[in-house]
């Protein structure tokens, strides 16, 4: 039953994608909408059914559906692992994807590539589902690359816009770096475990904990640490962690529904999901847990800071996404995988909500994304105003929104953690809470309050589209309420929603410690005034209010006084400059060298032309032998015969 349902869940979006892609012209725009959204909805309800069967009733499925290839002693299988983690991810993915499909009807109206857009989006959903349902690394990698490919296609959806084409390339290339680590990790697993099946790999791991590998001579590394860090490099690329985050801001060149679906709710969380899925692996290596935590926490603060100086409404939310992904990774590093996944779910709701609300603003403003040209939109876009506010509150972790529960749990978990770097990470995340609240409310106040700065033509046409409001409302509800109802079963109950799908060793089990102090969802809200993160968030909101509404002149003061910080932030810590200087220019230089020296001189002049010239030269020498006179030939023949004679005798 579970198997059949999950096949339906996975394959229906593929079917929708194929129909919209191949028969898009024939069925028309309306037909493409109907087909894809209908199939997505069916798939969503099947996902809900799986959620009931697996999470609530405790069923599960792990098996091979199809053997793709057999090579020597190992098989490459396509199979499903449907446990509670997968079931929860399926529901999240299908929920957001279905809503974004509906939203896109309004957002993409009048765009020439409408069917193509729906084809890509359904195709993305398929790849994402393949990723979460995988029961082996190969299929995981397939989904991983599949979502990367569709992300590339969708960032460059408006391919005639140069910034979009460049952005899509950047996303693709930066992801290659991460995927390089990822595939090395998979290769190491295959090498040491002889199998790619999760179950087999995890059962063989304990025997590997003493095995070491010398990457550099005389420095033995635990093989599990090496594998974990390689896999985490993949997660860094996909989940935009420092220093592989540079592609995510560029991905904002794509249509906004894509930013909501791919670059906020689902694809970028694939890294978080993967680390949680590999929890039995990461738990065995405290070094890699520390790496995960420190990278995550650093990103959570530093990437959030970048949003301070950003004036593009979508990019503000993009930086926020990177920062929140940092939170999730930090939770994973603290072995609070449940909290990471919980934040993934709530983040999927409120970040998709924020993006879609921003999309609604952008459409109303006629594709104007600059916050400096907005202002006082609350008068014209009331529903967007309220839903954006809910999203912003959830992002800032203000009780009782969903984000409050998940983010608080993460900060608390990191505080309880005892591995190396936990103290540092705790402070990063805490300051990050202030930063988060500040930048999102700065954007919020700039867009929806303050004086109207748009031109008259835009102002007259400001209005909301009902088909885009429905998804906003649908997402606002879980953003607001999900936390209260889900926090206990998700984090503290045993067995909780995630059941046995996550392994945590007792010495790292911070959530169990927190569970003993958990007073219940309502009391958590009441007690929030006693916790630091709450006050940090609140002060962030208040500071945003002061600097944007109360004393806008203060900005100018800060800009003048702290211009070097501003310059640093505008330059995004120089990652782009460094990448451009080192990698892009270096690659150009190297290709120049290979072109001029390697290709033109060695290959063309030396080998291709050179072989021709060599033949000419040797033959002009040999031609001297061919005099055409019989007596010359006879002489050579006799000399040859004599030579043979001598050779045969001696």
């Amino acid at each position, binding site marked *: 039953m579970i198997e059949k349902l999950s096949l339906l869940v996975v394959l229906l979006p593929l079917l929708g994608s194929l129909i919209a892609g191949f028969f898009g012209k024939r069925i028309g725009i309306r037909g493409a909408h109907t087909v894809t959204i209908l199939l997505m909805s069916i798939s969503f309800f099947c996902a809900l059914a799986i959620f009931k069967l697996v999470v609530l009733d405790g069923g599960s499925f792990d098996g091979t559906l199809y053997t793709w290839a057999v090579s020597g002693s190992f098989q490459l299988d396509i199979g499903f692992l449907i446990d509670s983690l997968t079931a929860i991810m399926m529901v999240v993915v299908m929920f957001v994807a279905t809503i974004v499909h509906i939203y896109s009807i309004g957002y993409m109206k009048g765009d020439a590539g409408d069917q193509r857009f729906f084809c890509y989006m359904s195709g993305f959903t398929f790849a994402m589902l393949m990723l979460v349902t995988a029961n082996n690394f190969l299929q995981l990698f397939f989904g991983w690359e599949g979502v990367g490919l569709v992300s590339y296609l969708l960032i460059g959806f408006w391919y005639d816009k140069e910034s979009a084409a460049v952005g899509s390339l950047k996303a693709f290339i930066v992801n290659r770096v991460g995927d390089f680590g990822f595939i090395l990790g998979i290769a190491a697993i295959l090498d040491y475990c002889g199998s790619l099946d999760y179950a087999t790999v995890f059962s063989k791991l304990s025997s590997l904990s003493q095995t070491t590998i010398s990457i550099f001579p005389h420095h033995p590394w635990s093989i599990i640490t090496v594998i974990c860090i390689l896999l985490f490099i993949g997660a860094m690329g996909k989940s935009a962690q420092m220093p592989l985050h540079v592609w995510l801001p560029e991905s904002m060149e794509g249509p906004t529904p894509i930013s909501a679906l791919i670059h906020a709710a689902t694809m970028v969380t694939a890294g978080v999901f993967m680390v949680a899925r590999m929890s039995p692996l990461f738990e065995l290596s405290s070094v890699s847990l520390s790496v995960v935590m420190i990278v995550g926490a650093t990103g959570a603060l530093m990437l959030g800071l970048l949003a301070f100086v950003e004036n593009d409404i979508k990019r503000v939310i993009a930086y926020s996404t990177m920062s929140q992904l940092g939170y999730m990774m930090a939770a994973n590093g603290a072995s609070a995988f449940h909290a990471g996944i919980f934040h993934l779910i709530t983040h999927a709701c409120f970040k998709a909500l924020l993006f879609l609300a921003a999309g609604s603003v952008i459409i109303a403003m006629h594709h104007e994304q600059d916050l400096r040209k907005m202002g006082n939109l609350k008068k014209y876009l009331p529903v967007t105003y309220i839903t954006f506010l809910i999203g912003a509150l959830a992002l800032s972790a203000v009780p009782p929104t969903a984000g409050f529960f998940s983010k608080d749990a993460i900060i608390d978990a990191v505080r309880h953690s005892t591995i190396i770097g936990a103290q540092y990470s705790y402070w990063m995340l805490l300051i990050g809470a202030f930063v988060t609240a500040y930048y999102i409310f700065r954007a919020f106040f700039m867009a929806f309050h303050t004086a109207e700065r748009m031109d008259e033509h835009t102002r007259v046409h400001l209005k909301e589209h009902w088909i885009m409001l429905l998804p906003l409302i649908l997402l606002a509800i879980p953003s607001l309420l999900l936390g209260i109802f889900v926090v206990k079963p998700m984090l503290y109950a045993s067995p909780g929603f995630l059941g046995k799908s996550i392994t945590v060793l007792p010495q790292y089990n911070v959530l169990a410690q927190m569970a003993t102090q958990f007073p219940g969802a309502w009391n958590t809200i009441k007690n929030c005034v006693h916790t630091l993160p709450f006050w940090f968030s609140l002060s962030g909101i208040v500071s945003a209010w002061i600097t944007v509404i109360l004393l806008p002149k203060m900005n100018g003061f800060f800009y003048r006084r702290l211009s070097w910080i501003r310059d640093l932030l505008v330059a995004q810590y120089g990652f782009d400059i460094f990448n451009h200087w080192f990698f892009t220019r270096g690659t150009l230089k190297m290709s120049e060298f290979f072109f001029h020296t390697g290709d033109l001189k060695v290959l063309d002049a030396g080998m291709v032309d050179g072989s021709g010239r060599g033949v000419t030269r040797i033959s002009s020498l040999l*031609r001297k032998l*061919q005099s*055409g*006179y*019989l*007596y010359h030939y*006879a*002489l050579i023949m006799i000399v040859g015969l004599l030579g043979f004679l001598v050779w045969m005798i001696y």
Partner: protein
Amino acid sequence: MIPLVNYLIVGAILFGLSFVGIIINRRNIIMLMMCIELMLLAVNTNFIAFAQYFADPAGEVFVFFILTVAAVEAAIGLAILVLLYRRTGSIGVREINVLKG
């Protein structure tokens, strides 16, 4: 009884003469063919001498074959020569160097 060595010396002299004739002859292609015939005869002399020395008639049988082949070769060579003369109007070895590449 004439010793074997004498036969061989005669053969070698004949062979050497014909060889030199081939190498240094620059004028007449008929001379060239005669030298080749002479070379074959030198070989024949050797065959006969060894046949007698080892009392093995196979050598003498070989000589008959070689003579036949030499006659055939001379006939074909002369035929070619006639054609060549008709075409180029000359039988000088120096002029026939169209074989060169």
